[in-house]
């Protein structure tokens, strides 16, 4: 299905810059597996949340003041005096959480259906880069209201870099722009918080480019083999994604309008005070699993390395997973391990928000150990020894629920 414009203006533009044809191909006739479930909605939802964050963020920045003496009250000015400022700020603050929820579901979907396997390794990598950029952006955004958790969160996290041997202290000073978290820190965080979402948008384009090169994975994990297996993106997936988005927006609205501070921390409604440390410094919920891993190691440098390692190992996933079958649907053992891994991540989240005392220290260590055990040991081993279920010959066959062709399998 090539793009052949009839409109003379479109024709004229297309002849000089084939951008409309490119968009047409990407959003209209992009051949998509016809069996995508609603788990595949979270990709476009993540893109939608990025737009929500950028739009609300740009308007918020028109009313916000990045200065240690003014930031806190400028946020309250937005909440009280700016028309619909409360709506914008709650959208932005809860939107960050929604963005992470969507991205975590998107990532777990990728893990379940083996979407990271060849030839989609770079697609997976680009997704992880987006995830890292999101974490940096969210962290710096949380500092901007300059409440107690903003300040102390910034202090704790920037201090992590002090664990680097020899140059650690110099790096921390460089990050702060001084000798403590102060006005220069707030200013640069604001600048970078405004910049990074656009970098994310750029990487998203690469992510979609890589996606469209080989096409979406699907619940069977089998590639599209002929025309029967695919349908054009529009109208089939545009309408499916719109329905998914409407449902998701109801979920978002429930937080936004009825529990806007549920995911936040009360201490961040206390202005930052460098002389008073909060009883418990906890990061935002989406960082809690990594915070738990950080604290699982008694040594600071070890903890930092392990925390970054938790994400670094995800980059190696396409090579650690030895199975030639993508979808957990046909991998009985991996399927069980996947859900144990999900529970392990929930446990890490829980422990990350608890004070560093028993029994949470022990639980945190065990959960951390299991996180790495799953990725570094179980995943490669399962791939080698697991006997997978018979794969259907094609997507169409799987959809029509025909008797699957035996492919080195024990039973049907």
């Amino acid at each position, binding site marked *: 299905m090539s793009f052949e414009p009839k409109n003379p203006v479109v024709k004229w533009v297309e002849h000089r810059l084939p951008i409309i044809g490119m968009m047409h191909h990407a959003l209209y006739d992009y051949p998509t597996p016809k069996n995508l479930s609603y788990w595949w909605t979270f990709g476009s939802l993540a893109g939608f949340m990025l737009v929500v964050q950028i739009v609300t963020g740009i308007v918020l920045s028109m009313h916000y003041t990045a200065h240690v003496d003014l930031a806190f009250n400028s946020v*309250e000015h937005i909440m*009280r005096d700016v028309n619909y400022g409360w709506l914008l700020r709650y959208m932005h603050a809860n939107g960050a959480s929604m963005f992470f929820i969507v991205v975590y*579901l998107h990532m777990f979907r990728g893990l379940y259906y083996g979407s990271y396997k060849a030839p989609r390794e770079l697609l997976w990598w680009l997704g992880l880069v987006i995830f890292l950029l999101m974490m940096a952006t969210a962290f710096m955004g949380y500092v901007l209201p300059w409440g107690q958790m903003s300040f102390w969160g910034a202090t704790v996290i920037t201090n992590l870099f002090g664990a680097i041997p020899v140059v650690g202290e110099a790096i921390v000073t460089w990050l702060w722009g001084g000798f403590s978290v102060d006005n220069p820190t707030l200013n640069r965080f604001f600048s970078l918080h405004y910049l990074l979402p656009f970098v994310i948008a750029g990487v998203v384009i690469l992510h979609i480019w890589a996606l469209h090169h080989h096409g979406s994975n699907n619940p069977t994990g089998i590639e599209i083999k002929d025309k029967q297996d695919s349908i054009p993106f529009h*109208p089939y997936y545009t309408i499916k994604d719109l329905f998914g988005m409407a449902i998701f927006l109801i979920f978002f609205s429930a937080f*936004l*309008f*009825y529990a806007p501070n549920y995911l936040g921390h009360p201490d961040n409604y206390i202005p930052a005070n460098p002389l008073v440390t909060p009883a*418990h410094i906890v990061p935002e919920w989406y960082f809690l699993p990594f915070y738990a891993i950080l604290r699982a190691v008694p040594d600071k440098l070890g903890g930092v390395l392990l925390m970054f390692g938790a994400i670094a190992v995800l980059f190696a996933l396409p090579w650690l997973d030895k199975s030639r079958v993508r979808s957990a649907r046909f991998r009985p053992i991996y399927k069980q391990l996947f859900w144990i891994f*999900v529970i392990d991540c929930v446990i890490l989240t829980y422990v990350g*928000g608890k004070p560093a005392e028993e029994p949470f220290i022990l639980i945190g260590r065990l959960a951390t150990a299991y996180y790495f055990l799953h990725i570094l040991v179980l995943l490669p081993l399962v791939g080698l020894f697991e006997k997978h279920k018979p794969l259907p010959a094609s997507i169409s066959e799987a959809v029509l629920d025909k008797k699957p062709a035996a492919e080195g399998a024990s039973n049907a």
Partner: protein
Amino acid sequence: MLKMIKSISAAAVLSVMAITGANAAGGNIDYKSVDWQHTGMFGTYDRSAAQRGLQVYREVCAGCHALELVAFRTLQDLGFTEAEVKAIAAEYEYVDGPDDEGEMFTRAGKPFDKFPAPFANEKAARASNGGAYPPDLSLMVKARSGAENYVYSLLTGFEEAPEGFDLPEGMHYNEYFPGHKIAMAPPLFEDGVEYSDGTKASVDQMAKDVTVFLAWAAEPKLEQRKNMGLKVILFLLLMSGIFYAAKRKVWSDVH
């Protein structure tokens, strides 16, 4: 899809449990629980309670605690007329200027002014309060886990220190304050204010009233928010229905 809804719900329940458990860190005190009129999906601020609460704030709390984020004009939200708001503002004095001669001058408060702080700065506040700093109350309800119930419990939680409790000079025992040692003396006493609407000013009543007022001060847009939320969610439900029908129609030819 049903399977997916099941998985998502299970994941959601687990995550909420994880996050709730996580957020509960440290805040293990059981506060007295009041059924506030403004909580819940359709909750609105109890106007007369909030108006009485304003009186408690002005006559009791304002001696030590600022309310720097609240402008007089916003009191209209609580049912005061414009004239009443002007009168309330005019009871305060503000240093303004400089005028055309370069002199600072004193003027009566205007609706656009915010509640004046009782002390010039933190040092002055500490000097007058035995070294303790009475915090600004504008966001107090949102700044404590326990929210309204915390403020109410604290205000009604002053007791004799138990036998053997080490209470330093100038501190007071409060059941609900972390560590139980609080510099603030019990602020509320029976008939400490005289309510113009004839409500009996018991300690419990005043504590409830001022808590409602402070809840409003911390979250003045609560009613607009819930009101809009209802409309948005109803709209989204309708939209989901239409999208779902459209999706069924579009997909009907895919086999």
